[in-house]
């Protein structure tokens, strides 16, 4: 397979679509947690029940067409290669728990990978919908549509007072987790994010690094999501998150402009050094790669670099993860080999840009 085709097939097709505010918001996501009335939750269920849930899903939903998103394909965790599962995790289509710890775990994935329904994770089903840019309302609509389709054939565990009943009390009520992935180099460089995070926590929102561990965010990419699922309507949860995200977008833009004004030459130097590293490095660790990719994306957004497409950040953040590197290499790699492979993948990807533009 040519490198170009590898990249195309590796990425979700929606990632090449444009959306509102894609310069700062990489993607919007909504997840609805639901359980079936007739079965105990996956946290305790018997093998027979797990099997029955899968059979029910297979019968009713495998191969079903969802408008605009294509067919749903059923992927059963037990029959997938470990590397395939890892790649699905790296694309955020399934959770690490579903990949490694679930019994009778499966996933219904739509052709365009905008819809991923996890089965027998912590809850019987978790409907997840994704879209590029800030489109939480649209994504919620899509998830609601699928939710209604499922409810036509299955009785949900629902209580008039508590709402949708989930394994974990942190999800009960709406079962809704809405989140956005944001690229915030301006707020990190100007050290404003440290002040914003506590304020967001007070509003019932959670901020965490999407890649990497703990509070340190690889590539200045942060995930912001709602904490509260009970006592607030779906619409309010999504609207509140959207309005906070819009404020953060405005602050990120103004801090980028301030940086470009006050430290123009330092910023330009930083961006081109990172660009040089990506073009030339023969060995590169994930952390350094993420930093350089973030710098280059900032350079594109601010107009310093115009020869590279904007999707480079989303693409390379996904492609340079261990699972993808090993898929690209066609076999398992040790950490040191991965760093070499990562550098060569980045160089090839950037060469592709040059060819397209010349």
């Amino acid at each position, binding site marked *: 397979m040519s490198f170009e085709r590898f990249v195309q097939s590796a990425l979700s097709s929606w990632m090449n679509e444009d959306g509102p505010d894609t310069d700062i918001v990489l993607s919007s996501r909504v997840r609805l947690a639901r*359980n079936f*009335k007739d*079965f*105990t*939750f996956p*946290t*305790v269920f018997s093998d027979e029940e797990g099997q029955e849930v899968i059979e029910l899903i297979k019968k009713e939903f495998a191969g079903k067409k969802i408008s605009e998103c294509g067919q749903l394909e059923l992927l059963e965790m037990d029959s997938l290669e470990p590397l395939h599962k*890892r790649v699905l*995790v*790296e694309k955020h289509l399934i*959770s*690490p*728990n579903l990949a490694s*710890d679930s019994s009778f775990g499966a996933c219904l994935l739509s052709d365009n990978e905008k819809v991923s329904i996890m089965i027998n994770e*912590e809850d019987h089903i978790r409907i997840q919908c994704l879209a590029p840019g800030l489109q939480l309302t649209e994504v919620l609509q899509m998830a*609601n549509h699928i*939710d*209604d389709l499922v*409810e*036509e054939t299955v*009785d*949900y*565990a*629902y*209580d*008039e*007072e*508590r*709402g*949708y*009943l989930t*394994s*974990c*009390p*942190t999800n*009960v*009520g*709406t079962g*809704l987790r809405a989140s956005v992935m944001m690229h915030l180099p301006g707020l990190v460089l100007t050290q404003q994010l440290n002040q914003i995070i506590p304020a967001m926590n007070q509003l019932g929102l959670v901020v965490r690094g*999407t*890649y*990497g*561990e*703990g509070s340190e965010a*690889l590539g200045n990419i942060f995930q912001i999501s709602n904490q*509260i*699922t*009970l*006592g*607030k*309507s*779906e619409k309010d949860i999504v609207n509140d998150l959207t309005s906070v995200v819009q404020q953060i977008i405005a602050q990120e833009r103004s801090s980028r402009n301030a940086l470009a004004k006050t430290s123009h030459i330092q910023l330009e130097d930083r961006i081109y050094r990172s660009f040089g590293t990506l073009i030339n490095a023969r060995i590169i*660790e*994930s*952390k350094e790669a993420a930093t350089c990719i973030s710098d280059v994306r900032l350079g594109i957004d601010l107009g310093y670099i115009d020869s590279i497409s904007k999707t480079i950040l989303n693409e390379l953040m996904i492609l340079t*993860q*261990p699972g993808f590197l090993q898929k690209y290499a066609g076999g398992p790699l*040790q*950490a*040191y080999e991965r760093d070499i492979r990562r550098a060569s993948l980045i160089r090839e990807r950037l060469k592709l840009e040059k060819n397209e533009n010349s």
Partner: protein
Amino acid sequence: MMLCQECNQMPATLHFTKFINGEKNEIHICEKCAQEMGEVYINQAGQGFSFNNLLSGLLNIEPIFQSSTASAKPKTEELRCKRCNLSFKEFVHVGKFGCEDCYKTFDNQLNPILKRVHSGNTAHIGKIPSRMGDTIHLRKQVAQLKEVLKDLIEKEEFEKAAEIRDEIRSLEKQNDRHVDGGPQS
């Protein structure tokens, strides 16, 4: 020296134990691999641990509050869900329910937990499944109208009150029809 189980090259400097469904899983890796796998491993485990610890912490506060009424404590611990057999003690340990009936079994213990996790909220406002929805909508409407009725009677606005009363009656009739038609809840 223990080698990293991932790359088998570097010394394993990070050691942690994962408990999943009571199954113990020991992981020994080097920092480099840990960093690489950050999302898949450390972060996930970290989140799981801290969240469970937090939740257990929250739940464990209960017995302290209840300790003045000595009889309450053992009762709560012994509480067990008839459908899935999960005990309250086990719930506190894993932080997860086993079935929908757990919500009824542990109803008395639930409000303080939900209040802490959901900023003081204990009741659902939001989507109602459409098939079971009709009767729920009606009942909620009736409950609201009854409040209005009480208010009107207190204010001695009897004419308006009579209108509301008739509205409630017609809604309750509709509700009866629904219940007769569908499964009894």
